[in-house]
């Protein structure tokens, strides 16, 4: 008998049907993978099971009995716990407090500090050795790095001791070693007979840990496969549907262009990196590689002026550039796309139009904003990325994550930049959107724009970058060009002691 069953569960947000009549069975002792492109409804489904989203229809059964999940508290009581894609941590509380927050050990009205610490230490110990040595149960979450926060959210989920555990993109910020350890834990849980729903956009992870995969497309369950009996290609074709199959394949052998240098950087030093130097030529896609958090993002943000460098020389098109703040660098033709769109990109609640225009306002030093005149500029940029949207006046929050990211990228296409800095731009973006994005990037490169691409997914880098600089400990350790751009070389450089 299934541990968890969904029958005809549906959820709409206004006109958006986030989930339509979903049926799903999760067995005890299985890792059940949910696959689907951005906005396909994975998180919605997860949150419904976890009680934080109210379904419009359908039935949920646990161990064959229909249950009413009235909220996250009720879900936990029923043995369902979830890792939230966007995390659910209290920033000013300690790691230990966060791990135990939902179910505080207590004596009467008082917190039992000892029990709390014991329990937290137990779960933290599961990740011994991969947390980084500035991590401890009494560290304050706010001071942690993104990967460490994800680990805390994982520990918090594990601490529920729930029998159904949902991990919604729990590995997106983790490095390889952390993922490995996490997978070991998942295997143990599986062996204990717990049911796990695992969501990720990374194909390799899915094949490494999954038992069964269910694919969702546009809120609809497309089908399920045993992992052992399927291939990435099959999953992808289920995800993208028949008409878009070609989109997944990326150009594996990019041409080697060699224009004039667009951006040259010498001895750049700043928070998180030191003495970084490189050159980007017109038409070139320069890749940044390495384990995540080795200074790649920091360098890009520094060049953009978001976290200005402390020293070093930068030249843009032969002229010196002093990246003090984005405003200045944008004016001089620097473009930057962050992977953290909800933080750095999207102005939620505002119309799509206003989300596309800000760069244009700045570069053209505009004062007035006439919507119809602006639409003429906005539409081609959005179409170039095949953005799906109903109208420029609709709020950007009505779009799926991937389409929101396309809007954010589109804002850089109205006035061509000289150099485009891509800081893991596809984080949480589905495969077809990725393909769209990279073919556009290639096109922009061919038009003479210098491109720097940091991607946390190695395949993206290997497929798209003409040259790869491997970062380690805040400095460039190796340059991979031509035939040297292999996965082996990339890993070797990344894992070398700094």
């Amino acid at each position, binding site marked *: 008998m299934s541990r968890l069953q969904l029958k005809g569960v549906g959820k709409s*947000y206004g006109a958006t049907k986030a989930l339509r009549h979903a049926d799903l069975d999760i067995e005890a002792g299985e890792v059940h993978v949910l696959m689907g492109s951005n906005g396909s409804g994975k998180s919605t489904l997860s*949150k419904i099971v976890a*009680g*934080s*989203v*109210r379904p419009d229809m359908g039935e949920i059964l646990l161990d064959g009995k229909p249950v009413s999940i009235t*909220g996250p508290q009720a879900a936990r009581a029923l043995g369902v716990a979830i890792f939230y894609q966007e995390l659910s941590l209290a920033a000013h509380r300690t790691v230990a407090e966060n791990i135990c927050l939902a179910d505080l050990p207590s004596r009467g009205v008082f917190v039992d500090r000892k029990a709390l610490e014991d329990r937290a230490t137990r779960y933290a110990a599961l990740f011994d050795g991969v947390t980084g040595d500035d991590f401890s149960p009494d560290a304050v979450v706010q001071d942690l790095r993104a990967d460490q926060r994800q680990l805390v959210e994982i520990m918090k989920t594990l601490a529920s001791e729930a029998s159904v555990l949902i991990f919604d993109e729990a590995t997106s910020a983790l490095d390889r070693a952390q993922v490995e350890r996490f997978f070991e834990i998942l295997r143990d849980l599986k062996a204990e007979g717990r049911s796990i729903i695992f969501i990720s956009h990374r194909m390799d992870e899915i094949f490494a840990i999954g038992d069964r995969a269910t694919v969702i497309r546009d809120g609809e369950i497309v089908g399920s496969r045993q992992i052992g009996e399927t291939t990435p290609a099959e999953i992808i074709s289920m995800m993208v549907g028949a008409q878009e199959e070609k989109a997944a394949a990326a150009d594996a052998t990019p041409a080697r262009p060699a224009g004039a240098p667009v951006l040259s950087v010498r001895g750049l030093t700043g928070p998180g990196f030191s003495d970084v130097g490189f050159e980007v030529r017109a038409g070139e896609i320069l890749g940044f590689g390495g384990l995540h958090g080795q200074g790649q993002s920091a360098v890009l943000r520094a060049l*953009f002026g*978001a976290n200005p460098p402390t020293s070093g020389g930068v030249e843009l098109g032969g002229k010196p550039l002093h990246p003090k*703040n*984005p*405003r200045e660098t*944008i*004016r001089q033709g620097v473009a*930057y796309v*962050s992977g953290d769109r909800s*933080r*750095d*990109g*999207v*102005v*939620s*609640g*505002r119309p799509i139009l*206003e989300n596309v*225009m*800000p*760069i244009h*306002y*700045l570069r053209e030093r*505009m*004062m*007035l*904003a*006439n919507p119809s005149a602006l639409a003429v500029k906005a539409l081609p940029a959005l179409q170039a990325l095949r953005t799906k949207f109903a109208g420029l006046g609709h709020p950007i929050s009505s779009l799926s994550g991937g389409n929101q990211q396309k809007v954010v990228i589109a*804002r850089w296409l109205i006035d061509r930049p000289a150099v485009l800095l891509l800081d893991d731009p596809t984080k949480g973006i589905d495969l077809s959107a990725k393909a769209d994005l990279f073919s556009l990037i290639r096109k922009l490169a061919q038009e003479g724009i210098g491109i720097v691409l940091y991607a946390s997914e190695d395949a993206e880098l290997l497929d798209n970058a003409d040259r790869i600089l491997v970062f380690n400990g805040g400095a460039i350790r190796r340059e991979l060009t031509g035939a040297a751009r292999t996965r082996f070389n990339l890993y070797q450089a990344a894992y070398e002691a700094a």
Partner: protein
Amino acid sequence: MNASIAFLRQPLVVALILIVVLLWLGETLSPGFASGQQILRLLIVAALLGIVAAGQNLVILGGREGIDLSVGGVVSLSAIIAGNLMAGENGGIPLAILACVVTGAFFGLLNGIGVTLLRIPPLVMTLGMLGVLQGLLVVVRQGIPSGRAAPALADFVSRTFLFGLPGILWLWIAIGLVMAFLLNRTVFGHRIYAVGSNEQAAFMAGVPVRAIRIALFVLSGVFAAIAGICLLGYSGSSFANVGEQYMLASIIAVVFGGTPLSGGKGGYTGTMAGAFLLVIVQSILTTVNIDESGRQMVFGATLLVLMLFYGRGRSMRA
């Protein structure tokens, strides 16, 4: 059907409906309440509040817990400065306006600097500034005699100017149009919303976040100063603490107009209706003959009930 419900739920529409209902109620309770003349007088009072609320509205729209508790102090100070500079003479009006606007802008600037460069939370900064302004009022009134409004200013506020409306209402309408244009059709307006809704994203898109926020506080000071001048025209002479009553009232007007305190959405048209709505409630309560204790209980409860028509926060369970 759904569309019409959505229409009825728009804050501006809610406010307008409530205005009509309350006017009707007022007329029922005390005949004469909803006469043309009386409505006009209520509108004048609402305009005074509405002008203060314009600045408050901008600061709140700018997000980051934006709020300006110092407006009351600026209103009082401006009324006093204006009264002294014009001293009952029309010739003194231009100088008075200039001085008040500069004063309002100055204190707005201080607030803005505290909030952006020193990153003091707005509530704290403007609360502290309110204390400073109240102290300053005592000093200023000590040194210079309280002044009188110039006749032209008094006429501007209470005499018919054009099409049966006094100048102050035309001023209010003009402010309404300028605000609507500013917020919807200018880059500055779009940037206000961007800053209010996602400051970090705005910064990354080259929006001069700090400059915008400072500008909002400056504008708030300026609007409060203008309201102070008008208030002088309304009451004829300046006196202590005239502005005190505008501090929280201006915030309520903004909220009744559909701009949530979290910022990033809303607009001024609603706020105008919100200001009028609040003035009507207060007036109804003055005209019914009950004890002050009763009036206050009814007023507090009414505010709560009216709030239910607006910004109930989202349920945490989507």
